């Protein structure tokens, strides 16, 4: 490993940037990713309208009842309720999209035999993994951006307007969750040269995360504490509610780091296998 010097760092960044640009370019030239974008936007748009109209009309009905019969009034924060429900659904939509984004990250390279070109040293393994992850995360964020914009437009129409921090925290949580899932998915795609298998493994990871969340809620004692802490979904839900914890950042960061690390390890092992 080269000693960490300014020059070394510059080389590392240059490597990451090169990979990042190459990967990002491939997203914008493949019709497949545009289809994914279309599906994502259609689903999120539909869900947004449905969630918004349902909640608004339900609350309006309740208000009407209260006016007519003097039924007990309940304080409802409509824009916040819409935000929480919508972000929950957006998380579910993303769970379908994310394995599709991560499945091709390494399988294509393995299939085409270009991985040997990339995997030349442990340090480049890290650079490649980081660059690829950054690129796919950029793509996902691009998908999310217009959705964030119309959340702002709609939810800030209330009086007083919904705090922008709530919208930012919730969507930021979604991006962090996506980064963690993509990072683990990237590792899985580095294990096999079958894209389908990588996608299936990616879904399996999401299933495990979901089971982790359910287990965390259903077990008691210290184990429940640990599982709750480890469950990225739990941290995401907290962020959508408006609770920002530094430990959430560390948990997401750990998953991202673990994914990159395991990818680098797996490519390293692959290299030895080939030699």
């Amino acid at each position, binding site marked *: 490993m080269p000693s960490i010097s300014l020059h070394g760092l510059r080389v590392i960044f240059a490597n990451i940037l090169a990979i990042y640009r190459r990967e990002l370019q491939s997203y914008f*030239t493949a019709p497949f990713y545009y289809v994914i974008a279309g599906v994502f936007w259609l689903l999120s748009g539909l869900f947004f309208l449905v969630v918004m109209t349902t909640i608004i009309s339900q609350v309006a009905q309740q208000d009407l009842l209260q006016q007519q019969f003097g039924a007990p009034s309940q304080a409802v924060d409509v824009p916040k309720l819409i935000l929480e429900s919508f972000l929950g659904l957006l998380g579910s939509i993303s769970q379908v999209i994310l394995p599709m984004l991560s499945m091709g990250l390494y399988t294509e390279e393995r299939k085409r035999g270009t991985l040997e070109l990339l995997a030349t040293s442990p340090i480049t393994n890290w650079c490649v993994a980081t660059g690829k992850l950054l690129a796919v995360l950029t793509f996902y964020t691009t998908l999310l951006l217009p959705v964030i914009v119309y959340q702002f437009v*709609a939810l800030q129409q209330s009086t007083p307007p919904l705090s922008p921090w709530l919208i930012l925290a919730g969507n930021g949580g979604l991006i962090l969750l996506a980064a963690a899932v993509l990072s683990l998915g990237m590792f899985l795609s580095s294990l096999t040269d079958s894209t389908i298998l990588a996608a299936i493994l990616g879904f399996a990871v999401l299933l495990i995360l979901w089971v982790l969340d359910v287990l965390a809620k259903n077990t008691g004692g210290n184990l429940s504490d640990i599982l709750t*802490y480890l469950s990225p979904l739990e941290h995401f839900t907290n962020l959508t*509610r408006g609770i920002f914890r530094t430990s959430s950042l560390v948990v997401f960061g750990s998953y991202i780091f673990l994914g990159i690390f395991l990818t680098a390890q797996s490519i390293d092992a692959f290299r030895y296998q080939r030699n």
Partner: protein
Amino acid sequence: MKRFALGSREQLTMVLLWAAPLFIIAGLSAGIVTHRWNWLPLGLLALGGIALLLWLIQQSRVSTGFWGRRSTQTSTNAILTVMAVIALLGIVNFLADRYSVEVDLTENRAFTLAAETRDVLQNLDQPVRVLVFDANAASRDRLLLEQYRRQANNQFSFEFIDPQEQPTLAKKYNVTQAGQVIVVAGEKTQRIDEALSESNLTPALIRVTSDRTIRAYFTTGHNELPLTGGAASLSEVAKLLEQRDVELLPLNLLEKGKIPEDANVVVVAGPRQPFLRLEQDLLKEYLNRGGSLLLMLDVDVNAGLDDLLKNWGLTLDNRWVIDGSGVGQQVGLGSDTIIVTTYGNHPITQRFAQGPSVFPRAQAIRIDPVKDDDIVEIALSGSQTWAETDWQSGNLEFTEGVDTKGPLPIGVAITRQLSDNPPKEARLVVFGDSEFATDGVIAYQGINSDLFVNSVLWLGDRDQKALSIRPRETTNRRLQLNVTTSRWLEIISVFLLPLVGFGSAVFVWWRRR
């Protein structure tokens, strides 16, 4: 080039390598989760062990001298590295959880604990455990409990328990339905039956950790307000007091001939007949030895306590306070009922902000301060009120020079230092009305009950820990989109954006061809 196909030797070893830890982890978790080490977790562990063994055998069959080869060294190295990294991440996360900083982004600080709760938690002097008997732990409950745990110095813990899984524990605490919460400190327990919130958890904590109950004696024999009954009784506030671990006891001064030694506070709630000489002396003597007395005295009743009040620098005004602002009429109250929103700076009222309390047919209290007494006007009528001299005639008009203009004190709290060493003080709270604490008036949803309950708690509990915490109010907000905005939102979100996606897909595909 290799394709993924089961059966190829290398793929098999790969599968074994990944299956082994998977089974071991599954077995361990199953055992930990069920607390039972029966066939399932042990079987899983055995499977994991077998997979690991097979992998080693397979590896050694691939080539003799397996252990000496470089690839073995690197893969064992790799496994060790992975384990080391995971352990490292574990430590980092342990520390991150320990020293996590939380920012509450909600507008009404919905996830921030009240100052009282933080005080209580920081002063916990014994371990407290909260047992939530619910198989399906609501994450809101967990959030709340986590916040409590973070504020307490290692003295607070909680656990979610499935009552069906641990029936003996459920039976021990007499849990009958899911969702019940038991707060345990040493031998004492407190039960919460409603949905868990800060406004019931903190009082439960205080009750379970405070080593004594407050004994409040209510005088009888002068037609005072009863503790049970309908609208004209104190049954609602009595219930609230009992929830705060206050024991309510009747006290007939003539029968007893003395005020019991264990009395923490004596309450005189709206007497209709005068106290006799002997009774007056008992009350005076009680105050002089450092007692706490709550007097609620109505207009036009001779309670025979004027002498005692004079001793404390107080005189009853004996006129109705009339509200000329018309605010009360808007909510269906007469002008003989005043709405108080101004409170003095006092432990009883410190968290009230400007919450309304309702006083029907109250009288003001005139104050002629006695030296060194600490006198606080805890409840003040508004500036558009006056004391009506001519109240009995029903002609409720303000007459300049005759009637006294507000603001007028309706409630007064006095602390008198009796001796410095040992510190000893007497406490007296006087309200110019008794009706404000009755069920009928409390129904107006003001903070009347808090005013009464906090008064009794302040008088009886010299530790001043058990003051009332009001439930947090949720932001009440509606979303009204105008037609143009919502039309545009619809068009962009479900039509234009997807169209851009699919359209570009077709375009790129077409260009590629």
